[in-house]
């Protein structure tokens, strides 16, 4: 593979954002004109507790180079404890995926509140950078020829 084509590659990152905090945070980042890489494709969900392993794995299966799941900070959940239940599930999933050899950094989790526009941009920058370093995703990607 030539360096030119490598340089052209831009990762596609699927972001599952909770409606009340992280999505609002992304919105704030937008209206505040904080710069962040355009690699993320946002999917808005009511709560990070709504994000199931199926969704994360489906994103990887469909060829997402990275996944970001972001919800409210613990204690700030709109539904009181959705993200606290989710936290346990994410921790286990994260470990399981790394256990079977999904590269650390493919799947990422963060807490970003509605007022943290800058933090949201920072998280996206960090995730994009990590995924760029990892290169295109190959494991668990479905190939239909």
């Amino acid at each position, binding site marked *: 593979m030539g360096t030119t084509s490598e340089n052209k590659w831009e990762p596609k990152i699927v972001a599952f954002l909770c409606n009340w905090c992280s999505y609002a945070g992304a919105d704030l980042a937008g209206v505040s004109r904080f710069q962040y890489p355009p690699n993320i494709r946002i999917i808005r969900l009511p709560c990070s507790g709504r994000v199931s392993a199926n969704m994360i794995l489906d994103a990887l299966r*469909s*060829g997402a180079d990275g996944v970001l799941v972001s919800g409210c900070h613990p204690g700030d959940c709109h539904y009181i404890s959705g993200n606290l239940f989710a936290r346990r599930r994410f921790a286990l999933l994260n470990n399981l995926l790394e256990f079977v050899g999904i590269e650390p950094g493919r799947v990422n989790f963060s807490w970003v509140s509605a007022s943290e526009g800058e933090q949201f941009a920072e998280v996206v920058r960090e995730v994009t950078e990590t995924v760029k370093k990892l290169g295109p995703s190959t494991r668990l990607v*479905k190939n*239909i*020829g």
Partner: protein
Amino acid sequence: MKVLKFDRKGMGKWLARLGEKGNVYVPASSKEGKTAIGWRKLESAEMPPVSPGVPARPVKNFLLPQPEVLFRFSTRPGKEDSFIPREPEPGQVDNIIFGVRPCDARSIMLNAMPYENDPYYQARMEHNIIIGLTCGEPCSTCFCSWTGGSPMGTDGCDLSVTELEGAFMARAITRRGEKLLEEAAGIAVEADHDAVEGLEKMSATAVAGAGSGTAPERALRERDLMELYNAPFWQDLAERCINCGACTFLCPTCYCFDIQDETLHGKGRRIRYQDSCMFPLFTLHASGHNPRGQKVQRVRNRFMHKLKYFPDRFGPLSCVGCGRCVRDCPVNIDIREVMGKLLAL
């Protein structure tokens, strides 16, 4: 009939030479690492170790691959070629499959009955050449002679190999088989009179042995379908069945399939893959109605299909007696007992 005699080393050489004509596959033993289809491609000039009995996975995986791509198409809406199905590109190389036991080889012919007008199966038949290996030492789970087969059977084989006193005797069954034997020039010798006689004696004893099993298909075909259908023991069998599909996926004569479309980023393919009548989804209607919604119905269907429905339609039993389902059922459901019960009813 010409019979060629190989020694072990010569066999390996010959197989390696066949590797230039196609992909040579041999049964994969558990130590050799696992492969998706249960057979491994032969890479060196070695006669593979052959353990008694059938390989872990049936030969049907070559004829009904998982998945078989029926078509490819574009899913970009509005585009002129959107959903114009394109058949897969022609494959050039044949598979030459060595070590197929008579039961498995026979399954190819049995499955060809329902697949008579199926171009994909017919093509796979054309492109998979079967080198049978007769059974000197049948296993305790084998029962091919009950189902119309024989440990020395050659149905479905292009070539049949028999191990006899440390040597391998190969005889061609089809034109394709003859062609493969031509590649043995300088490796094998023509078998002498004694060897051929020994082979014939072996076949004759095997056939005589097979006769003792009687042909249950005739007996079952004469029975009224509903009488067998309402047999009381189905419920007991179903109670223990965990409704997995191990038996059907390991069975060489289970040939049911499902068709599905898979799409990704504007590309699509229509595939078929092995399916199992043991799963409730197999018969579920879109309305929610399920004609075989109960486990007992599905268990019964599997056996009735093999032992009654298929024979009623095509003649032979849809079972070759390989014993895989007996050996690998997690709850020890034994088709031999089911046959016994149906026959004794």
